[in-house]
Each structure stands twice: as C-alpha cells, then as structure tokens.
C-alpha cells in the first residue's frame, strides 16, 4: 500500500511538472504555427485540410520534445540521484514512461483543439457538417503523441546524446513516409496514423497495430532498463 502511494505521488508530481516545462510550451507554439499557418495561407481550408498539410510530418518531433529527454537532463543536473534517495533507491523508469506519454499526447492534442476553436469561430457551419472527420482526427492525436513520446523516452536509455533520442522517432517516421509509396505499401503510410484523411481512406486496423507494436517495444526497453538499474543499486 505504501509503495502504491509512493508511485501515485510521484506520478502526479511528474504530471504537474510537465505542464510547467518550457519545452512543453515550445512544442505547443511550434504545433500551433504548423496548424494555423496552413489554415490561413491555403485557400478555402477547413480543419481537416489544414491539419494534414504540415502537422503530420512534424508530429513525432513535437510529441517527443516536451519531456522525453528528461532522464538525460536529470542525470546531467544530478537531480536523478536526489530523486533516487527520496524514493528509497527504487527506480521510477516505468512510472515515468506513462507521464512522458501523457505529456506527448497533450502536446499534440492542445494545438489541434486550438485549431478547432479558430475554425469554429471563423466558419461554424463547416465544422458542424464535418464533425465525424474532425472527431476521428482528434481522437487519433492523443495515442499518436503518447506512442512517439514513449519511443523517444525509451531511446534515451540506449543513446548517449539527448538530441538523437528526440530525433530518432521523427527520422524513422520520415524514412518510412518517403519509402512506402515506392514499395507499394501505401496502406501502411505512416501519416495516416495522425491525419487519416491526408489522401484516400486509411484503414484503422493497421494504425492500431502500429500503435500497439511501438507501445510494446518501448515499454519492454524501459522495463529492461528498470530491472538493470535495480540490480546495479
């Protein structure tokens, strides 16, 4: 019971920390620019067209930016040692996995809600007509952000550099985005996972398969790391 209480107190403190982090606000600002600029520049743009113009290609980076490299930052500033003493030598890698994911999810969801508000304010009839597609897009943004932030977080245990950990999911994503149309794998086209109406119609089944695979891989890396660090101490 005491352990559970410790885990929950850590979880909520960490969650509160995310929403005061400067990198979180940087990510929100970049995301808002990537969403609002196409909305005002493109002629006769709606929520869905503006959302699928630039945003899908920068989304993994925006999700990883807020909190994913926190482990490296805490190691650099020696704050990790203090946290370890406070938690009685227990590792907190897996608990943090979920807070990092939630932070990444909100980093993508809040700019989209802002775009929805702006487009509703300008032309509310178009928004009400398009409600199914808007809801579908909005619902996918949170799991997408969660999964990519978690992947970047898992990368921090493997690589030495902070920036490489943040950039790796984005690089993989862009590489597959470039390659899949040439390899006749269009139904696995990665931007479908966040912008399902970017072209044609996406199949939800593959999107969930991708989310699940990435979630499991990053969780396994984190758990292995947690076990290794517990043995060390």
């Amino acid at each position, binding site marked *: 019971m005491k352990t559970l209480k410790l885990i929950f107190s850590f979880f909520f403190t960490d969650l509160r920390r995310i929403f005061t982090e400067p990198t979180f606000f940087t990510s929100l600002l970049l995301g808002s620019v990537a969403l609002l600029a196409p909305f005002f520049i493109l002629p006769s743009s709606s929520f869905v067209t503006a959302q699928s113009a630039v945003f899908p290609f920068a989304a993994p980076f925006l999700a990883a930016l807020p909190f994913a490299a926190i482990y490296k930052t805490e190691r650099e500033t020696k704050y990790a040692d203090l946290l370890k003493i406070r938690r009685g030598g227990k590792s907190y890698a897996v608990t943090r996995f979920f807070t990092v994911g939630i932070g990444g999810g909100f980093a993508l969801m809040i700019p989209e809600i802002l775009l929805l508000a702006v487009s509703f304010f300008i032309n509310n009839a178009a928004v009400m007509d398009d409600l199914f597609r808007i809801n579908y897009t909005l619902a996918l943004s949170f799991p997408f952000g969660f999964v990519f932030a978690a992947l970047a977080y898992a990368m921090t245990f493997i690589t030495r550099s*902070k*920036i*490489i950990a943040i950039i790796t999911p984005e690089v993989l994503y862009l590489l597959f985005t*470039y*390659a899949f149309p*040439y390899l006749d794998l269009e139904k696995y086209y990665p931007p479908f996972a966040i912008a399902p109406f970017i072209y044609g119609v996406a199949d939800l089944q593959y999107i969930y398969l991708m989310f699940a695979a990435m979630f499991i891989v990053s969780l396994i890396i984190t758990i292995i790391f947690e076990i290794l660090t517990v043995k060390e101490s």
Partner: protein
Amino acid sequence: MNIKYLKISLTEDFPAIRLIIAAMVITFAAVVTIYKYVDLSDSVSASFSSTETTILALSDMINRVFIFLPLYIFVVSGARLANGLGNTGILLQKSRAGVATNGILKVFFYTVLFAVILLIIVTATSQAAFPKADDFTRAFFGTSSAYGFRSDVLSETPSKVAVTLVTTMFLTYFTIGIINFFLSILLKEDAAFVLTVIIGIGAEAMIVQRSSALPLLPVVIVIAVIFILLSFAVLSRKNL
C-alpha cells in the same frame, strides 16, 4: 603525433552501434531506390545496367542530401573527435597539435569506413537487380537528363563517371566531417551535430543542384584546408 595514442583512441571510441544502424538505414534506402528504377525500367521497357543504377542511387537528391549525409555526420560525431578524453587527451598526446592531427585522421578513417560500407551495400543491391554492361544503356540515355546529368557525361564510360562521382561525394563528406570536428572543439557534441547537419544539408543541396559537381572540387578542398588550419589555431588556445 603519437601513433600509439591514435590506435587507442580509434579503438576506444569506435562507433560500432552507430555504424550498424547506418548500415541498416543505407540498406533500406538502397533497396527503395533500386526498386524505383526497377519500376522505371519496366515502364520504359529497357533495362539499366548495374553501374548506372549505382550512379543514379548515389546521385539521387533525397538519398545523398537527406539520408546518407546525416547518417555520415551521425557516425562521425559518435567518434568523439575532440572531447573524448578532454584535457587528459592533450597530456597523453604531449602536444596540442597532436590532438588536432589525431582528430583529422579519425575523421578520415571514419569517412573511408563509411564510404566502403555505403559502396558495398549500394553496388550489391544494384547488382542483384540489374545485369552488368560496359557502356551506357538505352534506358539511361532516355532518362539521364531528367536526373540532371549533362550530355558530356554520356560520352564517358559508366565506371569513370562512377569513380568521379564517388570521389567528389566523399571529398565533400570529408570536408563536412572536418567542419564537425572544428565545431566539436568549440561546442558540445549535440550542438555540433545539429549545426553540422544544418550546414551540411545546405551545402550538399547546393552542390547536387548544379548536377556536375566537378568544378566545385577545388573550392571544397580549400574549405577543408581552411577548417583544418582553424582547428589547429583554436586548439592551441582553448582548453577542451
């Protein structure tokens, strides 16, 4: 210059994991590019030769600027050119100029290693898909202008063009590696990596857009020499 120290620093910071990751990504990119030319040769119903597809895959804009170059910088910056041992390195070397020479030799070594890996993978992939030929094929004559090759290239043999392309490409890569070494003296590893990627992509995109990179080669060499001299000058004053 201490040969024993060079041997230690090459084996100590050997970026094995980064090289493996680079090899995987290169294989992926090579397969995708060759697949593109398989599709193309089906549509024009004429086969390329393997040397030609090697040339096309190496001079492809997206491959060369956005995939191979960042991977090269990723490998080279993993070698910890300047700040592997910090000031202890200077003590071990017994001279500051030795550290600079050591770093430049390291850049050269990893450039050659990267070039060998890249060439083996790309030629192996294109030879698996296309037959060998001594002269340029009809398919290449039909499509080469679309890929930015001038007509004077077609009067040479494919192997000559390939050798020229590879030399130019890796001399520019080596220069970018030297710039990365210079920046890693001044900045942290991460910052040097990001800055070099930005500078490198800009420079390389400019070179590729001019299609025939040969006239630029003296400029590239001069830039490399300037940065080598600059790193000697900075290292003689700055603590690592």
